């Protein structure tokens, strides 16, 4: 896929921006504060319907404004598509695909795929388990629209079940109702775990091989889910029915503790997913350099995964990677990125010959 046009009217610091991204890669150059990252964020809005940085929609409205409006056009190799994401506090969020309004924002997701990488991801993602889950959820949602539906259903039932747990002491206990909220949670919960395991089993070999390219050492990178080794193959993953049974056992395991806590203690919303180096937790034992290599490898694995699942290469959005990466990793990343349809990079100043000349230079001057 290639994004050819982007219009912001307005978005964050841009009152009015028209970008023609042409056919291939682009390098957006501008001093800090000019809004390089905001452009990449706007592009990923078109693929996720929300901020990749986890910002609330309200935060993307310019200070003196009351709405933001992002339009973009991309080419999937067969035809061109247009999407628009509009938000105002008054009207809420509205999304359009090829001119037609969509009922739900989630319908936009999985139309136009992007992989976003920013230097702050290294600290953020590797420090917080919730951030890693978010990373994985955004990825799988782009590949399967049913995954996002399951996540939304799960989130809704989880809220209901947590309220139910909190009310247990106050009203007449109803065993049938307790069963119902557990069963309703187990249904999407098992599907989410199954999809995550499938995705991770598929991503792991790419991560491992990319890592050995980035790393100077001999250590091997891998992935663990729920503090356990991943199944070796997709065939070895428990079925959704089995996962459902396992999850229900977890939900029924500690009723007293759950009631006291007032929230659901086990489930996909608390599952840990992380990286390993020679089998040990990378988040705990890895050096800064190793962690950067892991995240870059993960991003390449994400890109390959989306390509395989959707049949289209995602657009790669790399935010200011060169200020954070050493020469060797940066060059290796560029080489790997050459295999993709379109890469959009940002940098504070023109890096000169370090970046191939076929990257269209776009300077943000005012």
């Amino acid at each position: 896929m290639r994004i050819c046009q982007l219009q912001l009217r307005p978005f964050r610091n841009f009152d009015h921006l028209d970008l023609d991204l042409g056919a291939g890669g682009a390098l957006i150059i501008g001093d800090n504060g000019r809004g390089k990252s905001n452009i990449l964020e706007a592009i990923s809005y078109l693929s996720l319907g929300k901020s990749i940085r986890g910002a609330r929609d309200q935060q993307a409205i310019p200070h003196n404004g009351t709405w933001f409006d992002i339009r973009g056009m991309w080419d999937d190799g067969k035809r061109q598509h247009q999407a628009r994401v509009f938000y105002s506090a008054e009207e809420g969020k509205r999304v359009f695909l090829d001119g037609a309004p969509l009922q739900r924002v989630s319908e936009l997701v999985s139309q136009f795929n992007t992989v976003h990488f920013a230097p702050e991801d290294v600290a953020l993602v590797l420090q917080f388990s919730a951030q890693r889950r978010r990373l994985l959820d955004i990825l799988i949602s782009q590949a399967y629209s049913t995954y996002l539906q399951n996540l939304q259903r799960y989130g809704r039932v989880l809220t209901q079940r947590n309220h139910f747990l909190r009310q247990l002491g106050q009203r007449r206990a109803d065993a049938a109702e307790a069963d119902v909220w557990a069963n309703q949670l187990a249904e999407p919960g098992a599907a989410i775990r199954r999809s995550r395991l499938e995705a991770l089993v598929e991503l792991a070999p790419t991560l491992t091989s990319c890592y050995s390219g980035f790393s100077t050492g001999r250590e091997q990178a891998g992935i663990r889910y729920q503090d356990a080794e991943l199944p070796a193959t997709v065939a070895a993953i428990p079925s959704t029915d089995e996962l459902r049974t396992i999850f229900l056992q977890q939900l029924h395991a500690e009723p007293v503790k759950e009631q006291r806590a007032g929230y659901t203690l086990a489930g996909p919303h608390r599952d840990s997913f992380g990286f390993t180096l020679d089998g040990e937790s990378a988040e705990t034992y890895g050096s800064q350099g190793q962690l950067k290599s892991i995240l870059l490898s993960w991003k390449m694995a994400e890109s390959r995964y989306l390509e395989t699942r959707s049949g289209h290469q995602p657009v790669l959005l790399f935010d200011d990677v060169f200020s954070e990466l050493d020469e060797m990793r940066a060059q290796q990343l560029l080489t790997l990125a050459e295999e993709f349809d379109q890469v959009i990079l940002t940098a504070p100043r023109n890096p000169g010959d370090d970046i191939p000349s076929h990257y269209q230079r776009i300077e943000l001057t005012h």
Partner: protein
Amino acid sequence: MGPQPLEDLVTALARLPGIGRKTAQRLALYVLKSPAQEAQALAEAIRGARENIGNCTRCFNLTERGQELCHVCRDPNRDQAVICVVEEASDALALERSDLLRGTYHVLGGALSPLDGIGPADLRIDELIERVRRDAVREVILAHNASAEGEATAEYIHQRLAGQTTVTRLARGLPAGSDLDLADRTTLTHALQGRTTFQ
């Protein structure tokens, strides 16, 4: 800020579902501009509806005051041994408009939602179970919304009715998360004809 009586009207209208502040303002100004009799008639219609419509004592659907039973429950041609369970009277209205059901209704008055403090005791579930026992009901059709709350309510009722009668559910013709009362006739026909035993 307009004159206080206008503000009061806007505030009252804005409390209606689906009406934002802007729309409420437009409606209020329209009412003020329209002839006095027209506005009077609207007020009367609201008062009349409020005073003269009550709930059927059997199915809790809407009925004219003074009538203990609604027109469906009174109709000898309707099959009293088949009950279609809906969340709201608006759902029964939608099904009734489509003219598809030969049985009767049971209006729960909502769906399970701990978030809103709604538990089984707040819905007319005991009344449903009582009806099933008393009237030798053959089939209970669960026509719930496709929301998380609708699904949970359906499962709960199914558990409570287990072994007492056949429980079916509408076919999944309704898109996930959608509301029954907004579905069109074709969708409802497919949903009713394709209903399946609840598992």
